[in-house]
């Protein structure tokens, strides 16, 4: 026990993201200060230069995402991070990166919105993240950590998935997970077979093929072909890369579904419900895109009642509804983001009790 305890480090979720980025070989970070994610640039402004990396506090979120585009085009691993108002500004660059098939990691520590909103935890950027966010029709990989350990592990995974599929990857968390501290095992970078980056701009000797990183397609059928190619890649992602966590779903009469911080709070509510004799389980998607549709479909073959809980008026519920069997139902409990709206386990337990099927 003691030996294991010594290996762990006790850090904030935001710091875990920064540490994982370093371990994953991130060479460049570009960002702009915004609460509640400033621990990430603060950490990396200290640590990246020491390791021969580059840190730039950009002139704007637009500047930062385009620096990420430029760095990524040369083949290095690079990252930016922000929160809602800044992520909105980054959408232009994210669209260009998606159109240019560029990898890159974007961290969104969600805060309340719309507009300036507030600094409290939110899950109301689910749609923006999972639908692509910018113009033109594209998806990005979206990973939703629910613990500080997952902030670490999923950040590393975001770099790998982004490189493998040449799709920007987002780590989507909120100020609860970003600001809380937990023990983390600083896992070494996983050994992943990555495809060679033959597409990078690098300067070229005579006779070598010209590499162009671009999103402009003007030839007849070129753009359409690009879209179908990406659609197939999204399908491949859905086949191979869906990740989720199930807790006590085997005998559940009611399955609570939530992601990120809310799933953490729900876990304790479910434990309370089990103690009270109710058969309740948890389905927590870890990849929000690709959304684990097949896992939901399988669960809904047996359990016909879901309770979707979000820090919004309901966004992920769209995906849950699309994924489950037609005769299964989804109840909803939401706390739109803002000061004082973070639900407690006791509150979610009450919702479980209220929605629990009476026949059971």
């Amino acid at each position: 026990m003691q030996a294991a305890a010594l290996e762990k480090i006790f850090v904030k979720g935001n710091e875990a993201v920064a540490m994982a980025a370093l371990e994953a070989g991130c060479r460049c970070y570009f960002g702009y200060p915004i609460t509640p994610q400033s621990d990430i640039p603060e950490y990396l402004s200290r640590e990246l230069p020491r390791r021969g990396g580059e840190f730039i506090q950009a002139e704007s979120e637009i500047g930062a995402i385009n620096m990420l585009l430029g760095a990524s085009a040369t083949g290095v691993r690079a990252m930016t991070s922000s929160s809602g108002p800044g992520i909105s500004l980054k959408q232009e660059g994210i669209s260009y990166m998606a159109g240019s098939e560029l990898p890159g990691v974007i961290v969104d520590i969600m805060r309340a919105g719309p507009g300036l909103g507030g600094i409290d935890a939110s899950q109301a950027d689910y749609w923006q993240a999972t639908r692509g966010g910018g113009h033109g029709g594209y998806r990005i990989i979206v990973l939703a950590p629910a613990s500080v350990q997952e902030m670490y592990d999923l950040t590393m995974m975001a770099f790998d998935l982004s490189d493998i599929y040449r799709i920007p990857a987002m780590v989507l968390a909120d100020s609860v997970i970003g600001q809380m501290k937990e023990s983390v095992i600083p896992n070494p970078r996983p050994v992943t077979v990555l495809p060679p980056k033959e597409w990078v701009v690098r300067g070229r000797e005579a006779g070598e093929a010209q590499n162009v990183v671009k999103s402009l397609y003007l030839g007849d059928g070129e753009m359409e072909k690009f879209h179908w190619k990406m659609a197939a890649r999204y399908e491949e992602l859905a086949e191979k890369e869906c990740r989720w966590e199930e807790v006590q779903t085997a005998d559940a009469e009611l399955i609570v579904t939530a992601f990120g911080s809310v799933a953490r709070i729900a876990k304790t509510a479910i434990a309370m419900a089990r103690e009270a004799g109710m058969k309740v389980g948890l389905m927590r998607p870890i990849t929000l895109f690709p959304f684990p549709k097949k896992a939901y479909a399988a669960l809904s073959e047996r359990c016909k009642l879901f309770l979707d809980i979000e820090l919004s008026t309901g966004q992920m519920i769209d995906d849950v509804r699309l994924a489950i069997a037609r005769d299964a139902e989804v109840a909803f409990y939401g706390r739109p983001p803002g000061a004082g709206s973070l639900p407690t386990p006791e509150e979610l337990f009450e919702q479980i009790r209220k929605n629990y099927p009476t026949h059971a």
Partner: protein
Amino acid sequence: MRYDVFFAGYGGQGVLLAGNLLSYAAIHEGKNVSFFPAYGVEKRGGAAMCTIVFADGDTGSPVVGNPSVSVLLNQLSFDKYAAKVKQGGICIVNSSLVDTSAVALPGVEIIMVPMNQIALDMGDVRMVNMVACGAYIEKSGALLKESLEAALKKALPERNHKLIPANVQAMEAGALAARG
């Protein structure tokens, strides 16, 4: 076992350091810990609070609606959070700054500890958070005093390690006062 404790006061009372200290102590005992802070936008004088959950297994929710133990260091925190303490739980109050007479808490054990006075008597009012930690481990029995001593080394920067003996004494004084 799963333990939870809620600390609240105003910024500058060392609430977050106390939370960190208890977290390191729990880690020292091989537990899983979540430390969830919340504070006002001001650096000093605003509200400061944190919730610490520690367990042998999964810590579950970092947010706790009805804490089993609350340690409330000023009047504002007491007025706002005392009523949330779970039935059968413990409310440890800094009686130097808090008047509890207006509030009845049936089913909750209220422990009055004159934390500012004790800290002042030991020579430094800034040790009020250490007095509070001592009172907490005494009443909850959740952590060993030795673990807190070990945690001090982790939570305090190296240059402040010379202050550790005084902090340990403050914890012991807090424990003694809580024993009643």
